[in-house]
């Protein structure tokens, strides 16, 4: 029964994606070209990485609002480690990823040790991490990275943008973990009934710590790619990314109450959003009009999905 329900939301979404692609391709001949589609994939990667891990977070019944700030903080730290501390760039990248992961772990600790609701905990760290980014950078940016670094954000491997490979690998790994492993089932169990999961002997807190750390890591990875793509670091990088990622996840059928959701759904949500953004701008609609449409699609999809599932528990 649940599998049927899962399929249904994703089928609706897949149909929507195909419809959108057909309509957009008919609107502009430049939309359905390999170059354009690959380029859109490049632009989708940063939000995509965050949204994939956000799926895990939301499936556990949590939320992580601090990812945009972790992105900004990791980007600033990357610049500081490399330029101000004079470390080799490879090491600086590694340390920036560590900073993000630790920031995520810190979120997890607040949530599990002190039983602070995730919304509040990450609302606090949203301000804290962004504040650290602003305080450390003092509104200065770091530029002039070596050429090899730009391969990550601007280059191609086998004709496909480098970061798109990364997104693909992360998506496959995440889909396997969530769909086929014990860890995935523990994630669902935590989200559908935490007390029951605890009494079944699942180490719920450890699952959560790991997931929030992974969320921080994904945000830091997105930061490295972002810096490489735009060739500079700024403390306001990634502002609002959390809402984009959550929109993609929820659009993808993950229940905001936890216990339900898939990586495929999130990917479909991401693709639909990116296709709308790009296709409509090619068709001459201003990007602000597109944001309106994305908001409307989000509300309508969930509304329709709710109408179909009127018999369900929620």
């Amino acid at each position, binding site marked *: 029964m649940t599998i049927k329900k899962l399929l249904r939301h994703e089928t609706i979404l897949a149909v929507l994606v195909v419809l959108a692609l057909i309509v957009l391709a008919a609107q502009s001949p430049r939309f359905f070209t390999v170059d354009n589609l690959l380029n859109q994939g490049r632009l989708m990667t940063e939000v995509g990485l965050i949204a994939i891990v956000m799926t895990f977070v939301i499936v556990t019944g949590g939320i992580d609002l601090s990812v945009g700030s972790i992105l900004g903080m990791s980007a600033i730290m990357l610049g500081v480690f490399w330029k101000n501390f004079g470390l080799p760039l490879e090491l600086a990248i590694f340390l920036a990823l560590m900073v993000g992961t630790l920031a995520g772990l810190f979120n997890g600790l607040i949530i599990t040790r002190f039983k602070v609701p995730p919304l509040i905990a990450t609302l606090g760290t949203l301000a804290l991490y962004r504040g650290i980014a602003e305080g450390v950078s003092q509104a200065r940016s770091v530029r002039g990275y070596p050429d090899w670094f730009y391969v990550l954000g601007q280059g191609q491997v086998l004709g496909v943008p480098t970061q798109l490979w990364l997104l693909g690998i992360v998506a496959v790994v995440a889909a396997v973990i969530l769909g086929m492993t014990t860890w995935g089932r523990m994630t669902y169990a935590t989200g559908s009934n935490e007390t029951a999961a605890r009494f079944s002997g699942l180490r719920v807190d450890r699952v959560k710590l790991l997931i929030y750390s992974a969320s921080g890591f994904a945000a830091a990875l997105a930061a490295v790619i972002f810096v490489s793509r735009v060739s500079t670091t700024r403390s306001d990088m990634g502002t609002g990314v959390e809402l984009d990622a959550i929109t993609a996840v*929820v659009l993808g059928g993950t229940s905001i109450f936890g216990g339900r959701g898939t990586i495929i759904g999130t990917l479909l949500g991401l693709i639909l959003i990116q296709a709308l953004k790009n296709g409509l701008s090619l068709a001459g609609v201003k990007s602000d009009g597109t944001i*309106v449409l994305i908001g409307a699609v989000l509300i309508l999809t969930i509304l329709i999905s709710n109408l179909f599932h009127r018999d369900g528990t929620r």
Partner: protein
Amino acid sequence: MSVEAAPAFRPRRSGLTRFVSAYGQEIVIACAILILFAVVSLINPRFLGANNLNTIISGNAYIAVAAIGMSMIIITGNIDVSVGALIGVLATISGTLAVAGYPVWVAWGAPILAGAAINAVVGALVAYGKIPSIVVTLGMLSILRGGLVSITGGAWISNLPPDFLLAQQRLLGVPAPVWFMVICTVIAFLWMRYSAFGRSLYAIGGNSEAARAAGIPIERRIVEVFAIHGAIAGVATILFATQLQIIQSTVPPNLELTIITASVIGGVSILGGTGTVIGSTLAAILFSAIGAGLIFVNVSAYWLRAVIGLLILITVLIDMLRRNRETRQASR
């Protein structure tokens, strides 16, 4: 039903202990404000000048007012992440009417009505569409933000008539926004504490099944409280939009999160059912006092957000520790 803001069923204690336990968070923030003022004015006595105090409080008054409505929403167990974008839209509506030559009361009244109407739709989607409020308002955030920029094209509104600029007017030497903040807070506090409507908000947030069993029309109440929240956001908009000679088509980034934070720091539990608007107003004052204080003690304003973030975490941790202790005591 008990009229205590704090959970009922506690042993009778002396009036003072009861007061401290019911308003713990409000007292903590009030003390924080006093300590902050004391420390900063010791370092730099000019901090306590009447003009400076007025500026500190009136500049952020609109956040305090918006946090009143947000507190009501959170108390019912919902949330609204679109209020920042809503304030931007309402400011543009108000400014456009003022520049078009409509009487000033139309320009002031329109955002209140429009806010109520827009948020009534949000409330209906939450209550009757059964969509979680965070999802509806996330969508609404996109719709309002995108709609605003695509209609205005990002242009600023200037040439506002002088009598439109409410926030620059004073009564008895006190800026109008401060009056609005105080009056709105007091009315909302009394109304939520003593009226049947206000009590029902706590009931819905505390235990919606029990509230339904008690005969509270939950769906209608949710629509109503969202509409009231929209109207209050309209009042906040007027205070925000009339500060300067121009109205920008953007609002401060993350405004919605600042407003939510004020509510939460003020003691409104995100799980619903508890909290007062006095706390959220005090929290909004604390934010602006910290901002101004940092400048007066010569700390770079770039650290402001980090300080606020740290403060949020400390407040929340203290609150959770207190709550956990109380639950343990209650379960004994």
